[in-house]
């Protein structure tokens, strides 16, 4: 029987704030991701994507609900989960005084104490990010796209059971975004599972196997992009989103 890469059951997160009252950022969300699948969480700003992702990444503790990563419960065994996931925060940076290659070596050393294996990881990252000689330069001199590629290659180099990428293409130009989408697709073909988020619904169609539409903390629809479009009679995911949010369609 094939284990799921991720199972989320009835997940809730409430931010407590004395000023603005409680914010229900994630409200009874459930979905799962098969092995080798790319799942995209899409929704507008403030929908609760990052909150969901941070809970999966063991950074935030759920208010209620369960998360299983590769069969391991996050609540009880966060440390075990960290061994099988990687997480790329949105708008993440890297240590500016390090070189690209130095950063990869540093991160690899956190995942394994074995030097051979670390070298294997770094080599894998280098062949993915295609930064070539620029890897020897300081990260401070990199463009945004280069940093994103570097970090992305870092996130997948250890072949995690689940790679969690928050807005992997945000702020990138079309060419770079396309590069990154291709990268994700080809790694998924090799069997890696992804949880990605985006508020760009058009681009996500091309990269994901399944999408979940989230708004105001509620997961409104889950399914293959093609299916969703058909069910709503929509041309693209943006239209699907519009209809789902306005309450015309319920799944």
């Amino acid at each position: 029987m094939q284990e799921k890469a991720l199972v989320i059951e009835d997940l809730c997160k409430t931010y407590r704030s004395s000023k603005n009252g409680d914010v229900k950022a994630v409200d009874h969300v459930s979905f799962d991701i098969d092995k080798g699948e790319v799942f995209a969480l899409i929704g507008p700003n403030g929908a609760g994507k990052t909150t969901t992702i941070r809970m999966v990444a063991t950074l935030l503790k759920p208010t209620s609900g369960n998360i299983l990563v590769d069969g391991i419960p996050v609540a009880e065994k966060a440390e075990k989960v960290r061994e099988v996931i990687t997480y790329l925060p949105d708008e993440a940076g890297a240590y500016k005084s390090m070189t690209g290659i130095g950063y990869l070596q540093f991160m690899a050393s956190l995942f394994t104490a074995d030097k051979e294996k670390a070298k294997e990881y770094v080599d894998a990252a280098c062949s993915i990010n295609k930064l070539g000689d620029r890897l020897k330069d300081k990260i401070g001199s990199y463009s945004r796209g280069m940093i994103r590629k570097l970090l992305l290659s870092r996130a997948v180099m250890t072949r995690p059971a689940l790679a969690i990428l928050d807005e992997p293409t945000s702020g990138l130009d079309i060419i770079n975004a396309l590069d990154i989408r291709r990268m994700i697709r080809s790694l998924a073909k090799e069997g890696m599972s992804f949880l990605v988020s985006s508020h760009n619904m058009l681009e996500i169609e091309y990269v994901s196997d399944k999408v979940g539409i989230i708004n105001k903390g509620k997961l409104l629809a889950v399914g293959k992009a093609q299916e969703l479009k058909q069910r709503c009679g929509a041309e693209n995911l943006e239209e699907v989103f519009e209809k789902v949010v306005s309450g015309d369609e319920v799944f």
Partner: protein
Amino acid sequence: MKFFSLFKKEVREMLTFQTILSLVFGVLLFIVLGSVMKGVQEDASNQMLEGMGKLAISDQDQSALSQQVLQQMRDQGYQIELLEGSDDEILRAAQEKGYQSALVIPEGFEQGIEKGGEPQKIRLLNEIKGGGMTSLMSGAEGSVEAINDTLSAILIEEGGYEDAAFVRNPVVADEFTYVGDKSVNVSASVLSGLIMMQGIFIPIIVFILVMFASQMTVSAIANEKADKTLETLLCAPVSRFSVLGAKMLAAALVALLQAVVFMFGFRFYMGGMTAGAMEGASGIGTALNTLGLTLGPADYLLVGLQMFLTIMIALCLSTMLGAMANDVKSAQTAVMPIMLLIMVPYFFTLFLDVNTLSGVGKYLLYAIPFTHTFTAANNVMFGNYTVFLGGLAYQAVFFAVLMFLTVKLFNSDKLFTMQLNFGKKKKVAAE
């Protein structure tokens, strides 16, 4: 192994141009401080001289000359308290009446003066009680000078002395300095200079260590948070304890390095100030030993332990502040309270002896954990072990609580849900 690569990375991150710049700045600060200190010292002794007019004297000669001198001084407006007994008793009695020091005109004084030639000795009794700057000040030499001038005037009036140098200076001070129940035949001002060197050196190292280490930790953590590299680290398969530990250890190490560099500069500067005192008095080292005013190996160990606790307390505090701050700028503002917590006791202990403060002020100062660090060396030197150990225990408890809170903070998700905006109004999320 993982810890080592974390540690290596932290050290590299912290040894930047900025840290080197702040080092230069620190050296400048202390050079300024050094000259201020010198000024304070001069001011204080001037004040003592001006405020003269009250003397505690024991006249053991009871001769016509000694009586005449004392009478003339009274006529000049001096208030003279006459005391009797052994030197010990005289000093105690003088102190009870509010005098800092006491003079003893020894038996045979008149005979000695009449014989001429050698200036006669007047015993000057002084006590050093603590390491604070004011308690080390004494204008006692001034009172001997006053006697000298009065006697000199009498001798000139009498006439008949050939030796002009003797007539001008018929009296010299024979200084005895007491610490507790021990005494040595060495000038209090020379001794206090040396004690200050010892007592100030250690606080200064601590001061630098703590300042730099806090600043570095706060910016390091706030930077990581802003760049979101902290999130990446906390999701990696390394324990949070080693992430924190590597940061703190690296900050402590880099700060230590800076302290060493700085100490060389400071020694160089202080060297000029105290070289005279050092050369002028031979056997000073043995005098300090007799009084028990040097730090032995065990003392250094104790003081070192306290320093370690101090740095760890500062690092815990700055780690928490850095972690809760929203961005690097507000983190740098956030570190201000720590700076204050260090500055206040630092300056207080520099100029005062906290042990002699009264009630509330004393306990307020003692509530600041860093106060105990600055008083540590003096407390050990002057044998106030109860106060020292109390401070040490207080710091140990303080540190344990802080460390517990820090690890708890990093294990909880407060890091991402709690955001303190130091000095700024919270921006409403809008994009």
